[in-house]
């Protein structure tokens, strides 16, 4: 309890510190360049100066934090990728040579590609199907809420949930894992699912699909509601059936949103490491880039150079999406 109390005190201090900064800096600005009274020329000058400075008072903490926590590390990671274990001696391209010569990298790269293909596709597909169907039924909102729920569960929590489902009991004991119990019920042999090469990757992907479908569903559902009714009515009048309306009228109109959902999940997939770490600890051929990077950071005291190289690979995979996002945001701003 003492810890929580001291945390609360620190928190209040921190928040008050933030507030004090914003209040204080603005107050100082108004004091140094008073604009409420004085000669007109002075007020005009002060107003101009204050208006030039104030945005940076507002932005200051954010810019500092973004620079320190995101911008500078990206640059430094690029630098570190040319340095050795401790990040002190220059090793040229040795880390890159190691990376492209190591089987582990190809394994995790292959797995990451599988994840990138399967998870966004499946989550978007299920999300779209569920969004379409729940919009038509009276208990749709309850259904949506329940399918959306896994979004709130941590990757580690979800891993425990699914590890329990994949649980395996040897010999003739009753299977307490749902999957094996079903297999036995239908007359099959129980399996240790997480150790079957290649396929175990898919058993891990199921977890992320389970979590992300709700996200896709919520966004796509909103987009579907935005489709003008006239287009659908016209299609109905022309005699289109349900599936034709879905594929030829609705899907093309929300294509932009589908792309957004897809890329969002893609980025998430690239960063996912908790599931692999908790489920298999990268054994049995389930390594992915993010987890490989994490283990190189800490293995045997850590190898910063190699870790940085793997992080760079993830970054390079993200860059196309980043460029696309910025261009879209710019287009949106100009359109406003």
């Amino acid at each position, binding site marked *: 309890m003492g810890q929580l109390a001291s945390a609360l005190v620190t928190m209040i201090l921190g*928040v008050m510190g933030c507030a004090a900064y914003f209040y204080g800096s603005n107050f100082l600005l108004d004091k140094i360049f008073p604009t409420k009274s004085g000669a007109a020329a002075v007020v005009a000058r002060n107003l101009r100066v204050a208006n030039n400075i*104030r945005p940076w008072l507002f*932005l200051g903490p954010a810019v500092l934090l973004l620079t320190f926590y995101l911008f500078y590390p990206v640059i430094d990671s690029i630098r570190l990728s040319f340095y050795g274990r401790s990040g002190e001696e220059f090793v040229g391209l040795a880390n890159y040579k190691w990376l492209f010569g190591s089987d582990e990298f190809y394994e995790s790269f292959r797995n990451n590609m599988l994840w990138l293909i399967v998870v966004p596709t499946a989550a978007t597909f299920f999300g779209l199907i569920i969004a379409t169907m729940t919009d038509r039924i009276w208990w749709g909102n309850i259904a949506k809420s329940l399918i959306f729920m896994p979004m709130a*569960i941590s990757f580690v929590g979800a891993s425990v949930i699914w590890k329990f489902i994949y649980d395996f009991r040897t010999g003739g*004991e009753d299977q307490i894992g749902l999957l094996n119990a079903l297999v036995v019920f239908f007359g099959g042999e129980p399996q240790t699912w997480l150790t079957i090469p290649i396929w175990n990757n898919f058993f891990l992907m199921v977890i992320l699909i389970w979590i992300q479908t709700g996200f896709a569903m919520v966004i796509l559902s909103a987009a579907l509601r935005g489709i003008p009714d006239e287009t659908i009515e016209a299609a109905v009048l022309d005699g289109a059936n349900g599936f034709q309306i879905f594929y030829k009228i609705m899907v093309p109109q929300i294509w932009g949103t589908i792309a957004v959902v897809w890329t969002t999940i893609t980025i998430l997939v690239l960063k996912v490491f908790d599931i692999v770490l908790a489920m298999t600890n990268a054994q049995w051929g389930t390594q992915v880039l993010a987890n490989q990077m994490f283990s190189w950071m800490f293995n045997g005291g850590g190898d910063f150079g190699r870790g940085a190289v793997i*992080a760079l690979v993830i970054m390079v995979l993200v860059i196309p999406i980043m460029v696309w996002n910025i261009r879209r*945001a710019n287009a949106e701003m100009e359109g406003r």
Partner: protein
Amino acid sequence: MITSSKRTPLTFLVHATVLFLVIIWTIPTAGLFISSIRDKNQLSTSGWWTALSTSEQRHVARAHEPKAQVQEGDRFVIRGNLFEGSAGEITKFGSSSLRPDEFDVGTVAELKKGETLQVLENGDYAFSSPVPWKGSRGDRIFYTAEVPPRFTLENYREVLNSEGLGKSFINSLTVTIPATIIPILVAAFAAYALAWMRFPGRALLVAAVVGLLVVPLQMSLIPLLKTYNLIGDFFGVGSKTYVGIWLAHTGFGLPLAIYLLRNYIVGLPREIIESARVDGASDFDIFRKIVLPLSFPALASFAIFQFLWVWNDLLIAMVFLGNDADHIVLTGQLRELLGSRGGNWEILTASAFITIIIPLCVFFGLQRYLVRGLLAGSVK
């Protein structure tokens, strides 16, 4: 949407499919919850879907010590009950681990040297011998019992106390609350500046924020860890502190926060802000008195996001906070338990439920804001 007036088979199919999907999506969590409140012996021998039926379990118990014997006629008898208070119904018993179900319940089993053992359905047993029992320990009795379903909060009591989850819960709160509030403050000011103030470089900053939205955390870890070590050495406090992780979460949450809030604030009616300016209000007053109250929905959306994200995070906590008892958060603790108590499902299920209960409450309580935030922020 399409509302077809006729009740077609298709409508039925839609209902059935949605129901099927909802069941698939809910069952994993339901299974976890049901398992976590089951008796641990039942949990490890039967699936959670059988939780309401009686289960057949094999156990071994020790009879009372020889000093509890009483003389009845010419025989020496030790009596007791195998269940000692809990419920059940015994079907078979035995006295050797090789044949634990040798005898049917109720029969008087002849053992060596004229000793006998009888076990009744309700668990009453009687060891009997022509000569006095010796030794300091009671004999073992193996039995198979039909045990009625039993639900208990014991698993929770155990993980909260002896597995250190109670402490981790507090650690998680310590991390989460400040890491949710600080970025809101910082981001709200920045978002207002990016939305309504004119200054050179604004478009560039907005683009930078959008770009930083997708930068993988992994890029930041190594350089930050190095810097944290340096700073920690300098102040002599070590690199793993709560302040460090609050700031880290603030930094990583800022792009989304600024992006979400700016999108919202830029959509506020221009007239309100312009007229306040004409009335002589400074930007600081406008922000504090007009923009902040009006953007409450957006602030709430982001707060929920950040809360869920920080509470559920494992990576940043492992790198910047470490695994000692004073610092380990719930997700970290759960991962450790997965490694060390991998087969003890009563511990894992209860722990997992404790880690997800708060986010679930937040989720169901504030879903409206969460959905709104998702819709506003889905460019990322």
